[in-house]
């Protein structure tokens, strides 16, 4: 049997292995900040020749790739705050952060006693320590937030006369006492006015998510602090979603979060689907079961308001009602971060709400002069998820659109300050019955877009008003065949979309609302009619460019030149409407033909040679050894 020495060696080996296994998580790293934004004005670009999206699903992998110079930027706007110290310490790397266009919140079931009492919900809001939530959930890269609209043009956060930021148990207890919820039997927990037990309030969080589960724990603690017995409930994600969607009568409070990316319309318009009394009890809408006549009246004004001042005023009044009524207690607004290498690149743009990864960054980023800039170069970015489809009508994910936006800019886009910038639209006119009584019926809207006239798709076809008219009608009619692009309220209220002239595009709606322009113009791009039309309305999802081999014709500044599933997407600059003159690439002129210089050989990578050598040596040793053994 084994000698003692070997036993000890085995024991040390196994103990060592298990110890290493148990401490291995310490190799993961931990957190702080710095952020800044760079201004950009003109819309001409891009400066870079190529942009390569590398799929790197693990954050550690992304961090190392950025620090080692394998990629130039992490194309996400939500790097975990625990990685910030590592980024800050790295040479030639800069982390950018800005307040997220979203927030985390606690949603009440306003149908369930005693949460149907406003004082109870307000008492909870006062009992919550939002500074603690910011600290625990986001390591301080967050701030308390009260409004139901995130930072941006529509929030009323600065207008509130009071805040629920700090824990204020005195006010909270006074509110509960006034509501008749007293600790009659002196057991430490409050009872209902009739003396019966309130029951244990459950604060649900998504158990597999750190922020959500911690929020549930803190939320339950806030209830307990004001004498209402409560417990955190860690749920499965599906359960979590369905309790909100289907008005599960058994739920009490649920923690959730919203992200609106760079879209400030949804950031305020969601108040309609989330709190409007007309949606009370309707699946998927008004999950807090909130009803308030004043709020609904304001909402009706909000939806049909024709000018920004009315919208702003009603939006603020509605937020003030929600701030008082607390059907949802907003808890925090955290920062979103991304990072870029600064030794080679400059000119990137921090866009409000979108942070650094955005359309303007790829348009403006350029090589430093010391690197031979500003023109040319390949900009490598790391993305954690691959594009799911190159078909703009099928692609749904954030990561998919991070790539598609580079090729499909809209009639108008928004600059770094969230102001409209015309891309395909050179100018536009918003017509109402008041301004054009002969062509616009009462309560209708008409938009006339004058398009730029030198724009072409990547196959050389001129982009005309016909392409836009086709796109709008294709979306609207396509809803009957499952095309989700036709599902928006604005598209459904469209009565006509047509080309009034080759470069004049008109959209008519049977509603008149301040929001119509945003919904019609922002991010609405022209589909190439000559490519899509043959698929028919029912074939909206059969067009499968790149992955399925169908031709990919795009209008924007880049086009796809290489793609390998789950590995990379290479975009190459094309001569588009706002292209800038690049110096001619180096060419070799022969007597009769001109050829592009061959790509430079890749840098010597010894790994392949070493592994190849090792495998070869192993084969030689094994075969040689076998032959020798046979001879023996």
């Amino acid at each position, binding site marked *: 049997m*084994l000698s003692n020495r*070997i036993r000890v060696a*085995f024991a040390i080996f196994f103990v060592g292995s298990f110890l290493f*296994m148990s401490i*291995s998580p310490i190799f993961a790293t931990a957190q702080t900040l710095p952020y800044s934004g760079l201004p950009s004005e003109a819309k001409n670009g891009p400066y870079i020749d190529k942009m390569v999206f590398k*799929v790197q*699903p*693990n954050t550690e*992998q992304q961090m*190392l790739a950025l620090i*080692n110079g394998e990629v130039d930027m992490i194309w996400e706007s939500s790097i975990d705050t625990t990685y910030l110290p590592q980024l800050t310490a790295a040479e030639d790397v800069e982390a950018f952060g800005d307040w997220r266009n979203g927030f985390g919140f606690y949603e009440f079931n306003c149908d369930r006693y005693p949460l149907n009492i406003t004082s109870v919900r307000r008492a909870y809001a006062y009992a919550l320590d939002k500074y603690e939530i910011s600290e625990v959930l986001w390591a301080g890269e967050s701030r308390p937030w009260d409004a139901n609209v995130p930072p941006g043009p529509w929030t009323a956060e600065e207008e509130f006369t009071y805040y629920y930021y700090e824990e204020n148990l005195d006010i909270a207890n006074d509110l509960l006492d006034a509501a008749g919820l007293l600790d009659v039997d002196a057991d430490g927990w409050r009872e209902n006015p009739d003396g019966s037990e309130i029951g244990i309030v459950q604060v649900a969080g998504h158990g597999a998510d750190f922020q959500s589960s911690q929020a549930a724990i803190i939320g339950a603690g806030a209830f307990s602090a004001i004498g209402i017995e409560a417990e955190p409930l860690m749920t*499965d994600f*599906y*359960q979590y*979603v*369905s309790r*909100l*969607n289907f008005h599960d009568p058994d739920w009490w409070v649920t923690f959730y979060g*919203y*992200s*609106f990316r760079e879209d400030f*319309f*949804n950031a305020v318009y*969601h108040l*309609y*689907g989330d709190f409007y009394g007309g*949606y009370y009890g309707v*699946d*998927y*809408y008004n*999950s807090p079961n909130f009803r308030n006549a004043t709020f609904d009246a304001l909402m009706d004004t909000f939806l049909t308001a024709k000018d920004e001042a009315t919208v702003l005023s009603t939006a603020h009044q509605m937020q003030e009602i929600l701030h008082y009524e607390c059907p949802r207690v907003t808890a925090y607004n955290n920062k979103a971060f991304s990072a870029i290498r600064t030794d080679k690149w400059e000119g990137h743009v921090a866009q409000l709400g979108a942070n650094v990864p955005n359309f303007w960054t790829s348009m403006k980023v350029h090589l430093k002069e010391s690197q031979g800039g500003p023109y040319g170069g390949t900009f490598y970015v790391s993305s954690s998820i691959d594009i*799911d*489809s190159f078909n703009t009508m*099928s692609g749904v*994910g954030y990561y998919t659109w991070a790539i598609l936006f580079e090729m499909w800019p809209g009639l108008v886009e928004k600059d770094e300050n969230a102001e409209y910038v015309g891309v395909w639209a050179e100018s536009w006119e918003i017509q109402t019955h008041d301004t054009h009584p002969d062509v616009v019926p009462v309560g209708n809207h008409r938009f006339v877009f004058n398009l730029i006239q030198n724009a072409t798709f990547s196959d050389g076809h001129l982009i005309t008003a016909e392409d836009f008219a086709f796109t709008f009608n294709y979306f609207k009619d396509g*809803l*009957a065949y*499952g095309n989700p692009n*036709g*599902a*928006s309220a604005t598209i*459904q209220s469209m009565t006509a979309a047509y080309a009034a002239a080759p470069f004049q595009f008109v959209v008519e709606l049977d509603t008149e609302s301040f929001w119509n322009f945003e919904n019609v113009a922002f991010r609405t791009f022209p589909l190439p009619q000559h490519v899509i039309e043959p698929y028919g309305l029912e074939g909206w*999802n059969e067009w499968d460019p790149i*992955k*399925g081999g169908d031709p990919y014709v795009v209008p924007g500044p880049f086009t796809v030149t*290489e793609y*390998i599933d*789950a*590995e*990379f997407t*290479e975009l190459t600059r094309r001569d588009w409407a706002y292209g800038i003159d690049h110096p001619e690439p180096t060419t070799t002129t022969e007597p009769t033909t001109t050829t592009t210089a061959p790509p430079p*050989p*890749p*840098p010597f*990578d010894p*790994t*392949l040679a*070493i*592994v*190849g050598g090792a495998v070869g040596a192993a084969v030689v040793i094994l075969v040689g050894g076998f032959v020798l053994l046979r001879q023996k």
Partner: protein
Amino acid sequence: MGLREYVIRRTIYVFLLIVAVICFNFFIFRLPTFLFGVSPLDLMIAPEQRATMPYESLQLLYQNYGLVPDPDIFDWIYMFWRYIVNMFSGDFGFSFQSQRPVIDEIMARLPNTLLLMGTSSIVAIILGIWTGVKAAGDPGSRKDVGAVTMALFTFSLPVFWLGMILLFFFAYMLPALTSTLIDGGIGLPSGGTISYEVWIAFKDQPFGALAIAGDILLHLLLPMIALGIGGYGGYFLYMRNNLIDVMTEDYILTARAKGLDENQVLYKHGMKNAMLPMVTAIAITFGFLINGATLTETVFNWFGLGRYIFDSLLLLDYPVVQAIFMIVAITAVLANFIADLLYGFLDPRIKYG
């Protein structure tokens, strides 16, 4: 009953089993819908987006995906019927997530999965058989005990952890340590199946395919080692125990009495007979090749079916998981069937009945 009757009977069983699997497939992936009422579209449309969408549009979208927001029993019966018809007509439909044909999505990942699972299975089988034979040659010795302990240890290691450790050493530590010697350092890829740089440099070269194949093999090395080491223990124990049993048979004694060399006894007489039960195990292993290795593929960012199954399950992408599970089930059932037949051909003593 002869071989022909046996094959007919088993074929009927196989068919019934596949029908049962198809029916089971429908219900198991819809459990979240049965239990919680959640549907795939709930995950595709964020609540903040849905809040701005008219209710009628939302309902129309559900219908066009073949879904019902809050289905009753008649909705379920209709959905089940349509599913059965589609499955038997080979129409796997479109993925909810990508809106691409499911079969295209599967075929895009299948080669990678077969490459990873095939090579790692071969590594595991060869390593298991080789060490199993060596250990069984001298049962109870230090070598045997050591090999058994090591096999049990590696077999019980979580493969994803082993993968992360391999990545840590060979993809992160090694390049860092050698970067002072050579610019960029020496190391293995930290994930994926191919490098962008290699692809761009060699795709148009006359012998570029060789360089690209080499790059894919380089990326394959670590996940293959992780799966190979993690899986060899089972084959080792199976082989060792079989061989130890066989070595007690009379014909082994006779071979020794004839004066044969111990290596000849072990490899020619012992191993040949001990390999018979291994055939079944290996056949079944190959039947499960298309399963992929979910955790390993995730750790190494390997573009294969295992990770796709996992992602699709989380997103309730029914068409994808239904199709993959049906293909996996059919392959596994057929592999078992073939293994049973093969066993009879290899061992003439076995009679079908």
